[in-house]
């Protein structure tokens, strides 16, 4: 899901605590923002920290002056062979920057049927990935390579080619499964420890201790069932949990109980993380929940008139109607895609990642 979806969902979750809404309106507290910040935190940890400290077994730095697809493919095969021998092997593919706005592109794919690693050197592209005509390699022996991996069967969630062109290249992990198949894991550092219930619980526990020692009762404690100190860890916990739940609706899952579980699970595959309507559905639901909660938990409800005069009209006009419109366009889009047999958004490719203004959709 998009970072914004996680962010606003975190705020929406926080708004379900009446005391938090009262603290915001009466004490100028930013506590509701805490839900948003921790809602986006798992991706922040991955893309701003974890990404840099992941070490790969093999790093591929193609030489733009001596390009050969066979060299790249053979290096990838080395990582697969390591996985066959030791259980795991990782490879980091780097991009080739030729000038400030010039990159040599290439693609990497895995053919499950023939157990081949397929590499194709592409044209020179600009940073917007627009190719320059006539810049393809002329020698077909060096521009295309298909290297067979002996005694190996691939298993991959996303059967698509990855384009390596601009900025940072992708990383793949190859994992030997119990059935002997080699699983191809895209971005092995993503959605692991940062996207686990365990980390959410740990952070909440630490924050809980600090808030227990430092946060007082606040005004009117008799109005609330949850003590004020407990709000902070709960908002943090639920904020990060909603991120994990939302991500689980996509194709790439999470490592829910790291370090007790080793691998990322598969997602439910209900929607692609980069699809517009599912993202907006979560965003709109969050906005409606926030407005509803801010109104029903307004301070002194007997003295201050409600902003929502009719709940039926509110939910009908502002939620059910947009929901129906979204459903119409969502299923219409699905039907059209099925008819055209167009591939869905190539969200696992590097091209998608680098063009995306919000990398957290990956």
């Amino acid at each position, binding site marked *: 899901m*998009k*970072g*914004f*979806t996680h*962010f*606003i969902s975190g*705020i929406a979750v926080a708004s379900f605590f009446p005391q938090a809404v009262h603290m*915001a*309106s*009466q004490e*100028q*507290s*930013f506590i*509701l*923002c805490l839900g*948003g*910040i921790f809602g*986006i935190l798992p991706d*922040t940890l991955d*893309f*701003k*920290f974890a*990404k*840099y*400290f*992941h*070490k790969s077994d093999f*790093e591929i*730095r193609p030489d733009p002056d001596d390009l050969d697809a066979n060299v790249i493919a053979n290096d990838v095969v080395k990582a697969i062979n390591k996985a066959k021998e030791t259980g795991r092997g990782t490879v980091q593919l*780097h*991009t080739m*920057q030729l000038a400030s706005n010039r990159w040599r592109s290439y693609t990497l794919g895995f053919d499950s049927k023939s157990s081949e690693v397929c590499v194709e050197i592409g044209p020179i592209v600009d940073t*917007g990935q*627009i190719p320059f005509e006539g810049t393809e390699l002329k020698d077909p022996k060096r521009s295309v390579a298909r290297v067979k991996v002996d005694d190996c069967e691939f298993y991959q969630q996303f059967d698509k080619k990855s384009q390596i062109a601009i*900025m*940072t290249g992708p990383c793949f992990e190859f994992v030997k499964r119990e059935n002997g198949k080699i699983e191809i894991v895209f971005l092995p550092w993503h959605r692991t420890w940062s996207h686990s219930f365990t980390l959410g619980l740990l952070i909440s526990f630490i924050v809980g201790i600090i808030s227990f020692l430092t946060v007082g009762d606040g005004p009117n404690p008799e109005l609330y069932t949850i003590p004020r100190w407990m709000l902070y860890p709960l908002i943090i916990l639920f904020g990060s949990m909603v991120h994990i739940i939302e991500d689980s609706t996509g194709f790439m899952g999470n490592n829910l109980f790291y370090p007790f579980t080793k691998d990322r699970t598969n997602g439910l595959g209900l929607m692609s993380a*980069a699809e*517009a309507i599912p*993202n*907006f559905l979560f*965003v709109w639901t969050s906005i409606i929940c926030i*407005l509803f909660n*801010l*109104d029903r938990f*307004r*301070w002194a409800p007997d003295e*201050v*008139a*409600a*902003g*929502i*005069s009719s709940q039926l009209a509110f939910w009908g006009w*502002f939620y059910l109607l947009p929901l129906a419109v979204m459903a119409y366009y969502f299923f219409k889009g699905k039907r059209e895609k099925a008819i055209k047999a167009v591939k869905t*958004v190539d969200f696992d490719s590097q091209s998608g990642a680098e*063009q*995306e*203004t*919000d990398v*957290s*959709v990956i």
Partner: protein
Amino acid sequence: MSELLNYLLNPGHLDLIYFSVIGVLFSCFISFLPALHIYNVIGIFLLVVLKFEAAMAPMQLISLCIGMIVGYSILNTVPATYFGPGDESLSYYILPGADWLAKGRGFESVILTGVGALGGIILLAILAPAFVWFLPGLKSITAPHMFWIIGAVIAYCLLSEWPKGLSQSENCWTNFFEGWKYLGVGLITFLLSGILGFIVMAKTMVPIEFAFQSITPVFVGLFAIPWLITNIINIGSIPPQHEPESMELDWDLVRRGTFGGFLGGFFAAFIPIVTAGVGGLMAGHATAQRDGRLFVMSYGTCKTVYYVGSFLLFFIPGLSLTRGGLAWIVTPVVTSLTVKEYFLFVAIMIISAGFSFLLLIPFTRACIKLVKRVPYHWISVLALIIVVPAVYSFTGWGGMAIMTVATGLGLFPVLFQARRMNLMGVLLLPVCLNMAGYGNDILRFLGLL
């Protein structure tokens, strides 16, 4: 209803159309002025116009303002595309716009934003009756929470900037610092801009008689001069521009672009201090925009809905919501707000938008001719020669000092390829903390109190 139609169709109101057309034409001129924020220019213009107040009815003045703001919001894309952005709301668009320009597709880019803008005006008009119904409720729900909503906007803007860089070193720390260099610059830019905002708001160096222009040197320094300097230093020239016979547009693109842009523009119009750039970014992420054409069109809708919508909010009966500089400027001349005046506003808005859209193509062609004849960097030099003395004449040496500091800050994101939006910290941070009641503590900490 018939009374309303009589009012709208009364030939006696043709003068309002005349004034709105004058406003649109004037907006062509305004949008050419580099760097000066629309509200500042309109402020100066109205100082002159108000001398004729006796000869102008309030609704005529309002029509003039509607024409100016609608025209500006639609036409300013043209000079922004060919000569650089004037304000923050434009700087959000300018990178994709510059990209299209570099590919010779500046014309397409302008027309797409124009279509988006027109879509935004149509949506505003369609929703105008509904605004009367639901906006008072929305205002009463959100009013006590504005400070943290702005706080959330700040948090998201900072958190949603992702690292750049190649990460090709074998040393992970080198890669880490390479990526974080951009993020660090963004954070520092935001913080320093925020401090500048506190200083300017607490102890401005602008002479008191020009207090209404106190933010002008800040915006000129943060957004305009860095862009002009970049244009002057860059050796590159604008490639030949292609004018297509037809545009590739489909309803799906128009629907998605207009919808996303409307959300961003409306959010920016409704929430104080949030601009079209910030609103557009958030709406773009909320609706998962990826297509370049979608972004450009959505931007057109966003900035129009932001500029026009914030002015429209002022006229909604029973709402009493003053957003944007123009609403504050007309406050003294508007005595009462009725449903009639509100719908008259909407009617003039539609007429102004139609006229502005008709002007868009000839205006773009004129700009293309200009950039063909005059070297690009000379236009920037000329703009710089105009803008610096203009700031001096309105704000004196104090304003020049503020502008110089702001220019230094404005160059930060340009040089380090960070988000220029972080410069909006100049307003977002002080306003958010002031609304939350922490402003005086910060001022004391900074030694300004």
